[in-house]
């Protein structure tokens, strides 16, 4: 009788247990966290998906949200280095600060691309010594990074670890299927290409290109994070023209005038696309974001250079 009562009380308390409060830096991580946590988590992304995540201020509201969080997940790889350390420190919440059980840095689990070898200094621009942090545009890399989300959820709420693990597996399967579908869509266009067909403004599509075996000419930026000079734009436009590049791709926050100027000089059409899920915009989930990017690639591959 006693045992039944205890079990009943535990099950009642579990049923009414509050979901974990989860804060993520980006909307893409928020989406992954919701997929893993389902109804056991209440997830809020600090960013809206429209910002350049490199250049964000330490907004006091972020501090308040972090102060109440059970788990904070970030991209890492120095993406949020200019603002997130201050947000976490000022929150006064030891659990979500580095070393705390609710701190989760997803970049740690990712097979990193473009990690610089050899000496690095700031004359080379905004170089990330840990490697390119824009991994979430690759379904495979997002699956890898989400392992850290799973680990954090299990650490903080071990009672639901089996559910989290099952949800992670489902997420992994879902992302793999999405990748296969998109790969099949792109295959006939990629097969018709010889050599690189795309150039990017900033190297934030590297993981996406790698996932779908798209060859890129490189970036319009000469140095990461440094606006290209008129000479650089002209030089790279000439190269793009001579190599028959089909499209130039940049984030929505990439400088529009620079992209336009590049198109004028090269005759290559430019595309400014979302680089994150935008819950208040048309790209509300990861599938729609991936579809948008893949469709943009197909449009670029189908276009004829002027």
């Amino acid at each position, binding site marked *: 009788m006693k045992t039944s009562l205890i079990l009943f009380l535990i099950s009642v308390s579990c049923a009414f247990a509050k979901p974990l409060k989860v804060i993520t830096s980006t909307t893409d991580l928020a989406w992954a966290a919701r997929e893993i946590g389902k109804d056991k988590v209440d997830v809020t992304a600090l960013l*809206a998906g429209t910002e350049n995540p490199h250049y964000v201020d*330490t907004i006091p*509201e972020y501090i308040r949200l972090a102060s109440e969080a059970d788990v904070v997940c970030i991209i890492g790889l120095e993406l949020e280095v200019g603002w997130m350390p201050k947000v976490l*420190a000022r*929150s*006064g919440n*030891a659990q979500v600060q580095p070393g705390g059980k609710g701190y989760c840095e997803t970049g740690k689990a990712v097979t990193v691309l473009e990690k610089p070898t050899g000496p690095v200094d700031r004359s080379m621009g905004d170089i990330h010594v840990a490697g390119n942090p824009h991994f979430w545009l690759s379904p495979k890399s997002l699956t890898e990074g989400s392992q850290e989300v799973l680990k954090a959820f299990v650490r903080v709420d071990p009672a639901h670890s089996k559910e989290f693990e099952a949800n992670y597996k489902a997420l992994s399967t879902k992302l793999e299927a999405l990748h296969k579908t998109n790969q099949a869509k792109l295959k006939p266009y990629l097969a018709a290409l010889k050599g690189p067909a795309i150039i990017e403004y900033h190297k934030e599509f590297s993981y996406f290109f790698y996932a779908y075996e798209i060859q890129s000419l490189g970036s319009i930026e000469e140095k990461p994070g440094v606006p290209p000079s008129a000479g650089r734009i002209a030089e790279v436009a000439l190269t793009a023209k001579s190599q028959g590049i089909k499209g130039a791709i940049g984030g929505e926050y990439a400088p529009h005038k620079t992209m336009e100027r590049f198109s004028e000089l090269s005759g290559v059409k430019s595309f400014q696309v979302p680089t994150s899920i935008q819950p208040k915009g048309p790209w509300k989930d990861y599938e729609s974001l991936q579809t948008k990017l893949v469709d943009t690639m197909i449009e670029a591959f189908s276009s004829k250079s002027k």
Partner: protein
Amino acid sequence: MKNPILVVLIGMVFLSSFSKAESGDGTGLQLSTAGDIVGSLSKDGKNKLEVREAEFLVFAPIDHYFDGVLNLAAHQENGAALFEIHELTIGSTKLIPRSRFRVGQYFLGIGRLNQFHRHDWVFTSAPKVQSEFLHSEGLNDTGIEYGYLLPIPFYLDLTVGVTNGWVFGHAHTEGSKPYFPTHYARLATYNGLFANGGMQTGINYLGRTDNQGTKTSLFGLDLTAKWKEASVLKFLFQSEGWYRIKTPSSGVSEGAIGFYLFPQYAFTSTLQLGVRFDGFTITTLQDATGAQIANFDYAMVPTLTYKASEFSTIRASYNFKGTRFQGQTINSEQVFELQAVFILGSHPAHDF
């Protein structure tokens, strides 16, 4: 510190700490160096370019609870470069929920300018309200500061602190034991503005009674608004207003009000233009008959800033200052300033 040997020793400590940090020895030790070079040109000024400040900052977690900060600055004072401790603190953001505290020597957590090192300001020189009421370099002292984020559905952050108060402002003497030490508080809140902007507002209080029994009370309001467009801080508005009342143990109280307003617009990610408007008046100035004397110090400072990155700044500003007394301008001055700032090494993330 004028002893060159000590300077060299400190330099060696820094170099060794830098190499350790770079080698990834697991201490998390980070080093930052800031250089601030300022030149001024005016009719009756010194008209020279000089190193205003060189700053060395070391910060790291001490252990799983505490963080340490050491900030040494060499700066020009009366033609000599003085090397001194600006900040040395041990603190924690992990020990007490929703709280942070620090113990040691630091710039007091009040107002806006006072919480930033001078090389990180959005203009070159301090407005009169800062230099008169706090200090042109910022008010630092040794004490204890505690911050608490209130558990309510919006951002409201309370900072309180007590420092020795033996000196007030910037001094190279021990000072003298005050009757009542320096104590202060700041309550800050934040409101989002449209989709890409926000505004932080703080109300401030500081009090101290010196060893002569003169009681000083400062009441301030600071406001910072930012609006971003893509990666660019398109518009910035920064302002502080302070009221000071000084009451001697015997005699008449003196009141003064000062403020500055600084709107700034960014043409590109690297080029910004701002204009600072300053005002300052002594509210209790009276003539022999007891009639109030109108007085007002003003300044207008257009400031053009070029920031190639967050680590380098070139700034030019034109200061037009004047004093009006009983309705007449009795003094005016025009100063052109040129500033170059650079930061080497790690630089900690900034507050809003």
